C-alpha cells in the first residue's frame, strides 16, 4: 500500500478543491493535488500518486524509471492499478 505510481496530469478539474485528472497507465482518474498546493501543478506535469493524492512532482525521466520498476512488480502493480481504477473521487 505504500507504493507511489507515476501519473501525468491531464487537466485541473476543480481548482478550488485542488482536484486534477491524472492518467496512470492509460487510465484517467481524479486525484487530489492539495499536498502540492504551494507548487504550481499544470497539465503535462508528472506526479507520484499515492492513495489518491499527488505526493510530489517528478520529472519525466523519474516517472519512466518508476513506471518500469513498478511494472516489474507484477501482481502488486496490477493490484495497485486495479485499486486506482476503482477510485471514484469526484
Amino acid at each position: 500500500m505504500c507504493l507511489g505510481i507515476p501519473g501525468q496530469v491531464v487537466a485541473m478539474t476543480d481548482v478550488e478543491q485542488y482536484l486534477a485528472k491524472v492518467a496512470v497507465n492509460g487510465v484517467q482518474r481524479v486525484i487530489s493535488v492539495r499536498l502540492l498546493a504551494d507548487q504550481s501543478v499544470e497539465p503535462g506535469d508528472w506526479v507520484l500518486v499515492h492513495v489518491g493524492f499527488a505526493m510530489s512532482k517528478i520529472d519525466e525521466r523519474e516517472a519512466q524509471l518508476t513506471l518500469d520498476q513498478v511494472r516489474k512488480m507484477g501482481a502488486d502493480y496490477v493490484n495497485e492499478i486495479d485499486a486506482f481504477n476503482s477510485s471514484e473521487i469526484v
Partner: protein
Amino acid sequence: MKFVDEFRDPAAARALVKSITRLAADDEFKFMEVCGGHTHTIYRHGLEHILPPGIELVHGPGCPVCVIPMGRVDDAMWLAEQPDIIFTTFGDMMRVPGSKGSLLDAKARGADVRFVYSPLDALKVALDNPTKHVVFFAVGFETTAPSSAVTLVRAKQLGVQNFSMFCNHVTIIPPIRAILESPDLRLSGFLGPGHVSTVIGTRPYRFVPQVYRKPLVVAGFEPLDILATVHMLLQQIRDGRCEVENQYGRVVREEGNLQALKLLAETMELRPHFEWRGLGFISQSALKINDAYADFDAEERFSMPGIRVADPKACQCGEVLKGVLKPWECKVFGTACTPETPIGTCMVSPEGACAAYYNFGRMHREAANMIGETAGV
C-alpha cells in the same frame, strides 16, 4: 555476479557491486532498510545475493500493515460489526488477522466492509449513503497520513455528519530510535525510507548520526538505488564520516513537503504512546485526530473495546520487524503461515518481509544455492 543482467543498467550495477565489494573488503556490515518498499525490492531482485557476503541487509519496522497490533484489528472488527456501519479500508488491511479472524471474515459474516483506494473514496461512500455511518480505517506512516488530513479537512468543510476515521497513523522516527536503543541489534547504518521522507524531509534523521553515530542514507526504490545507497553508506564509513545523505534527491527534498506537514499539524496530534506489533509501546509514535476534528474521530464517537491482545504464540513477527529474525527462521513460515493463510502481519502486505521473501526471496535463494553448487563455491 548473479542476476545483475535483469537490471535496467547492468553495467552500472556491475560497477557498483565491484566498488561495494572493494569498500567492504573482509569486514562485516549490517544495514537496516527501514521501509517495506525497500524490503520488497531487495527480495524481488535477489539483492542479498548480489552483495558481498559480509554485507547483511536487515529488515526494519517500516511496513504500516505489519506493525498494527492485534488489539487494534479487533477494534476495527468490532466497529465493522456495529449496526448501520459501512467500514472502509485499504485492500491490504482486509486480511490482517485479529484474534477473531480478519475483516474479510467479518465481511463474510455479514458486515458491510468495503475496500477503498483512497480516504477520499471513503468520504464519497459517506456522501452516497446518508443513512449509514461510514468509518475509514486509517493506517500508514507520514506518507499516508497527509491524505487522511486532507480528507478530514474536506469532511469538515462539507459538514458531513456520517463519517469518521479510526486513526492508526504512525510516525517513523520513534521506532528507529527504539531500534537504536535496543541491545539486540548491532547496526552499521540505515537505508532511510523514501516516500516517508518526501513528507518529513531528511532533517528529522539527524539524531541518528549525531546521537547514535550511525550513517543514514535516504534511498529510492529501484534496485540500482539500493546498491547506490549501500555504496554511499560504506563510503561514509570508510571516509570516517557519519551523516544523513539523500540518494533519492530526485524525489525527496531536504525540507520535505511543508504543505503536507501543515495539514497534519492542523488535524492531528501525537498520542502519548501507541502499541506496535513486536516493538511494544513506543511513546509519541502515533497520531490521533485532534480536538478541532473530534467529530470525525471514531475513537471519540464509539466506545470501542480497546483491549490489548497478545500476539499468537507461534507468531514471531516482532522479531522479524526488529530485524532480529529472518522470515524463514520463523517456525511457522511457509507451513502454517503463508500469504493465503497468514498468521502474522508480515505475511499479509506485499511489503511485509515474510510475504516478500515467500513470493520472491526463496526463488533467488534457491537459484543462488544452485549456482553456488555448480560453480563449486
